[in-house]
């Protein structure tokens, strides 16, 4: 074997170009991993429809006895299905970083001259893309089941943005959890434990008016409720700018809190 001559070493690129290149590499890796697990991909795309069809029809009968905003339960629930899907995907979103910590892959990435924060931000971009794709599937499926959207196509795009704003905070919590735990054995029990109660203590499936007093108080504090109410407004009533901005503000505040928690967990947990 003879020595191989290498292509000459390129000068270090500017910071913005460097950030772009490392994000492209990281996103490419997350997407390749997803592509190699087709059953997981299938579950991610089909499960939201199952939620919609199952809960939508299961609870529709009961819902007839009470009045649900929007005229039909399915129409009422579409917003809830979007928010639930975003929550479920994002709350698990940090676990890949925990896997990378366990395998030593994370340390190897840290030895490269990439920004360590890029590893996390690429996860946010990936999950925003993934949950948007899921959101489109849900909204299209609901349309086929007869749900009509008061705010039109632009409103649906706005739904995806609201979903991403909500998802960013949830992802940050997941990342914080991933950096706080020693192994993934605890990760899924914790997210599983938190997931369903948080969903039921929101307006995903039941309007505030039909909740018992104490649950209504909890639901009012739940950021998922804010996201759902706004999504529901876009689906059922159409554009209302002021509440839209208020919700966006509330979700940004939620994101800021979650980012602070994640930053704290990450400062201590890189290794």
């Amino acid at each position, binding site marked *: *074997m*003879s*020595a*191989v*001559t*290498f*292509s000459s*070493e*390129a000068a*270090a*690129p500017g910071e913005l*170009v*460097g950030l772009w*290149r*490392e994000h*492209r*590499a*990281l996103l*490419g*890796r997350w997407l*390749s*991993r997803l592509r*190699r*697990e087709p059953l997981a991909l299938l579950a991610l795309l089909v499960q939201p429809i199952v939620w919609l069809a199952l809960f939508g029809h299961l609870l529709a009968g009961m819902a007839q006895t009470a009045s649900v905003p929007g005229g039909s339960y399915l129409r009422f629930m579409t917003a809830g299905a979007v928010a639930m899907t975003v929550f479920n995907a994002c709350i698990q979103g940090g676990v890949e970083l925990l896997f990378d910590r366990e*395998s*030593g*892959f994370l*340390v*190897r*990435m*840290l*030895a*490269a*001259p*990439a920004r360590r924060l890029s590893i996390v931000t690429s996860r946010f971009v990936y999950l925003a893309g993934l949950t948007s794709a899921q959101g489109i599937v849900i909204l299209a499926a609901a349309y086929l089941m007869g749900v009509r959207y008061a705010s039109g196509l632009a409103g649906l795009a706005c739904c995806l943005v609201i979903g991403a704003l909500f998802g960013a905070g949830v992802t940050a919590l997941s990342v914080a959890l991933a950096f706080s735990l020693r192994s993934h054995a605890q990760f899924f029990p914790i997210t599983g434990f938190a997931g369903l109660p948080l969903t039921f203590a929101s307006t995903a499936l039941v309007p505030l008016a039909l909740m018992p007093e104490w649950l209504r108080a909890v639901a009012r504090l739940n950021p998922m409720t804010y996201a759902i109410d706004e999504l529901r407004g876009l689906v059922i009533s159409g554009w209302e700018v002021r509440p839209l901005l208020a919700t966006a503000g509330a979700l940004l505040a939620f994101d800021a809190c979650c980012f602070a928690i994640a930053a704290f967990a990450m400062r201590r947990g890189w290794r």
Partner: protein
Amino acid sequence: MIANEQTVAAVEVSNLRRTFGTTTALDGASFTVGYGEIFGLLGPNGAGKTTAIKILLALLRPTAGRARVTGIDVAVQPMAVRRRVGWVPQERTADPLLTTRENLRFMAGMYRLSAAAGRRRAEELLALTSLGDYADRLAGDLSGGTRRRLELAMGLVNVPAVLFLDEPTLGLDITARRSLWSYVRAIRQSGTTIVLTTHYLEEADALCDRVAIIDHGRICADGTPAELKAGLTGAGARASLEDVFLAATGQELIDQPVTDQLVGR
């Protein structure tokens, strides 16, 4: 690229200390690696080898003392150091769900190469490490020796000035080990300085130009394998590096009760 290549060493470590709480991993270690050398860092488990390497990769900050790679202080310019060094860790870290080629391109991206440069670099490394036939296989499906070559190639994406190999042949059979040695020699031929840790003294003897023996966070012997063997008094002309190692680390005291040895580390 480096103006004063003649005057500075590839790696310069002086009085390096690193503590973790009450544990002292490095206790004033000093050593120098010249350009183009294959340098072996030998020592028992827990001697401070991995800590030293992590400091030289700018993954850990030293508690005291100084570490410079190609003249650049790791504590002052960590990013500049990372651009110039490569690392092949002890663990299998290639992503098992990516192919060989995808793993290489991914690492190229993490070293901020452009897409085109990354593609070119991946093909060069596939050729260098004879991984062409495995380019589209998932890393998780590769055999031990092949996987090890991929790990090696991943440490070379940035054409490092200094390559750190942590136990490069751990767990390989003798054929795969010898084969990996020939790749390491080829990498040195291309101008890369190599620092490796190993438990296999035979490996250090066969591969390394110079060797330092580290124990309890200090360097206790340093020189070419031949010098170290010659310097060992009382062992005669047939001293092996193993004798040197045992003498230097004081582990010839096998009369010592086993429990003492276990607790003493």
